[in-house]
């Protein structure tokens, strides 16, 4: 009984112990704060690295033979197979092809493009054809309303296509708050609907163009855009140059530099037509219901299943499908590895903060043991065992860790959650810009508080405090009680 009572009394009657508590508090608080911000940054970078990739990308080697049949140039069968899996939220085909902007009618702009020394990529663009089934999408709420008016219920059926598969088109639905994608098109449900005023015999297809590209080329919505590309012509057994004019119907922004600076979206059928029907799709994008849980397993399953059904090549000489069915992480493996490394390194470095706090406790307790020699002797004379005395001093460290750890966890968590407001306040009060939002791609300081981490850190504080207290406590237990009792 005396151990907890006395240790607490020693703690509160000795202001020096505040240093130990503060040490733990600062250590735990700083660790939580910095780790949360670090995690925030990493997750933000992860998002940047991921860019506009969907969960899983299926990239069959079209034209190769698999399981006795040729892999189809049409995505239909592959889509059906993927959508049948209950882990899949959505799947859609996309056709991505490299092209160049060839603005021959607008010499001024074409010159501007050609003269741009800073960005040699500006000329090139990734042309991506996607399916936007606006009509079906539009019909959905209408049916629901009709059913409701008749007293029935129309379950919202997911339309499994690009609209669900990639984050870009989520934004078209306008129901994904905080989504970094934004689209400025007159009609989000039909983003590629070209304007009537185009006037020629065949209305020109609409395209959405990345915002940065759009701004740098000083374009306007409604303006014509000429794109050029090369496709393989089997009839002539040669490459063929294709050019076509499109109409800019809007812009999009993903905050992913590369995408915003070099991607152009249009309807997949239009692009297939532009490419002379040589290709109808290049990838199938898959969105899973729970990527964290199912991603890896699903990918393995699909490599096997799709190979068996002859939908991907997956043979010995095709890496067993590893190149054809990939999670986005496998797609960007190297970059993610670097980020993970950074996090581990950071964690190790930050643990030193706790070690420093531990040293503080060690120093204070050592002082205290020397100072409390006489008390140790008295307690011993009154029947305390060496083990009891050891526990008494360990308990002081325990209180240090408890008070400092809990307060530190609370303050650190609060700080991590409110870091943006705190930084703004500090910047305002002291007139210095601490976090320059222009330098980073984010407009806020990212921070993610992970309860497991908080728990681990507090536990770490306990372990550290007790470990460092062990030596002085052990010394106290070995004190000769008489040494202390004999004299005043």
């Amino acid at each position, binding site marked *: *009984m*005396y151990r*907890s*009572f*006395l240790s607490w*009394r*020693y703690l509160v*009657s000795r202001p020096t112990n505040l240093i130990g508590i503060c040490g733990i508090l600062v250590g735990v608080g700083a660790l939580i704060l910095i780790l949360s911000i670090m995690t925030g940054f990493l997750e933000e970078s992860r998002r940047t690295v991921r860019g506009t990739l969907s969960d899983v990308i299926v990239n069959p080697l079209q034209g190769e033979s698999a399981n006795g049949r040729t892999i189809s140039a049409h995505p239909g069968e592959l889509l059906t197979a993927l959508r049948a899996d209950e882990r899949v939220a959505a799947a859609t085909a996309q056709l991505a092809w490299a092209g160049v902007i060839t603005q021959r009618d607008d010499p001024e702009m074409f010159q501007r493009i050609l003269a741009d020394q800073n960005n040699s990529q500006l000329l090139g663009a990734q042309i991506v054809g996607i399916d936007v089934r606006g009509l079906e999408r539009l019909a959905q709420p209408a049916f629901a309303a009709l059913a409701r008016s008749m007293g029935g219920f129309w379950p919202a059926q997911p339309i499994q296509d690009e609209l669900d598969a990639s984050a870009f088109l989520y934004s078209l639905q306008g129901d994904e708050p905080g989504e970094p994608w934004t689209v400025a098109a007159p009609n989000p449900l039909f983003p590629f609907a070209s304007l009537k005023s185009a006037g020629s015999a065949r209305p020109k297809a609409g395209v959405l163009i990345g915002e940065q590209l759009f701004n740098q080329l000083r374009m306007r919505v409604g303006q014509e855009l000429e794109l050029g590309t090369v496709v393989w012509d089997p009839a002539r057994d040669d490459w063929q140059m294709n050019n076509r004019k499109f109409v800019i119907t809007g812009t999009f922004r993903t905050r992913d530099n590369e995408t915003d600076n070099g991607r152009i979206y249009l309807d997949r059928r239009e692009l297939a037509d532009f490419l002379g029907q040589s290709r109808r799709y290049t990838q199938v994008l898959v969105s899973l219901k729970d990527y964290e849980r199912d991603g890896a397993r699903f990918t393995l399953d699909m490599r096997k299943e799709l190979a068996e059904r002859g939908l991907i090549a997956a043979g010995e000489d095709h890496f067993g499908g590893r190149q054809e069915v990939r999670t986005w992480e496998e797609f960007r493996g190297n970059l993610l590895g670097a980020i993970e490394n950074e996090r581990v390194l950071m964690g190790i470095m930050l643990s030193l903060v706790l070690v420093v706090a531990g040293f503080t406790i060690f120093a204070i307790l050592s002082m205290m043991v020397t100072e409390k020699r*006489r*008390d140790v*002797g*008295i*307690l*011993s*004379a*009154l*029947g*305390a*065992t*060496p083990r*009891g005395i050891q526990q008494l001093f360990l308990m002081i460290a325990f209180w240090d860790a408890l008070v400092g750890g809990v307060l530190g966890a609370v303050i650190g968590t609060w700080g991590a959650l409110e870091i943006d407001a705190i930084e703004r306040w500090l910047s305002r009060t002291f007139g210095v810009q601490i976090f320059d939002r222009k330098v980073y791609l984010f407009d806020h300081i990212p921070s993610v508080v992970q309860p497991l981490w908080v728990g681990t850190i507090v536990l770490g504080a306990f372990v550290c405090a007790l470990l460092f207290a062990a030596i002085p406590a052990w010394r106290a237990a070995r004190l000769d*009680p*008489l040494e202390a*009792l*004999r*004299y*005043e």
Partner: protein
Amino acid sequence: MEPRSRTSPRSSPPAPAEVVLAARGITKSYEIGERRLEILHGVDLELHAGELLALVGSSGAGKSTLLHCLGLLDRPDRGTVELLGVSGWDVPLVERARVRNAQVGFVFQFYHLLPELTALENVLLPAMIGESRLTFTGKKKEHRERGAALLERFGLAERMTHRPSQLSGGERQRVAMARALYLDPPLLLADEPTGNLDSATGAAVLELLLEEQRRRRLSMILVTHDEKIAQKCERVVSMKDGRIVGGG
């Protein structure tokens, strides 16, 4: 050896009073540099139930050293100390600590109170050490009342929540006495309890202590330099150079 004094009526009939404490052949030496200095040279001592024994002798005779050996605080080089039939230095450490806690009360010359605790808390310290958290908390009220009553009897009713630094020497020693008596141990060891007090205060404090000893029929060893005090005791044992030279 003839006992110097046998004035108390209680011990005059040679009734076979129970032996509370029996020390046999206690030797103790200290190593100082190269040399080994023997302080106690085979001391035998018996203390009966309810007996008050004065231990006298010149400074450096080894009185305190002997008392620490008897109180299971300092291990003798040789010899045994039997406390209520238990050989104190042969039982495991935990058991010895328990005996110290429950069977032996110590009163030191320099009071030895814990400075962070109030007078009352100091008195309750033996109970805190001896009892588990659960037991102590369960009896907390009872403990407080008993501790307060004891302090009250020692004239410290107004001093319960004072820290030792806020008490006079005589008051401190009375708190220390209350602490030693709190668990009602059968044996009380007092090492010059008045050595640090002026004679008037010392006399008053000692009177209180002896009264408690009589009331509780404690077996007690009182180390003192004061001839007059020794005269009040039933038996006087005198030591010289680590040997008992009179009254043993």
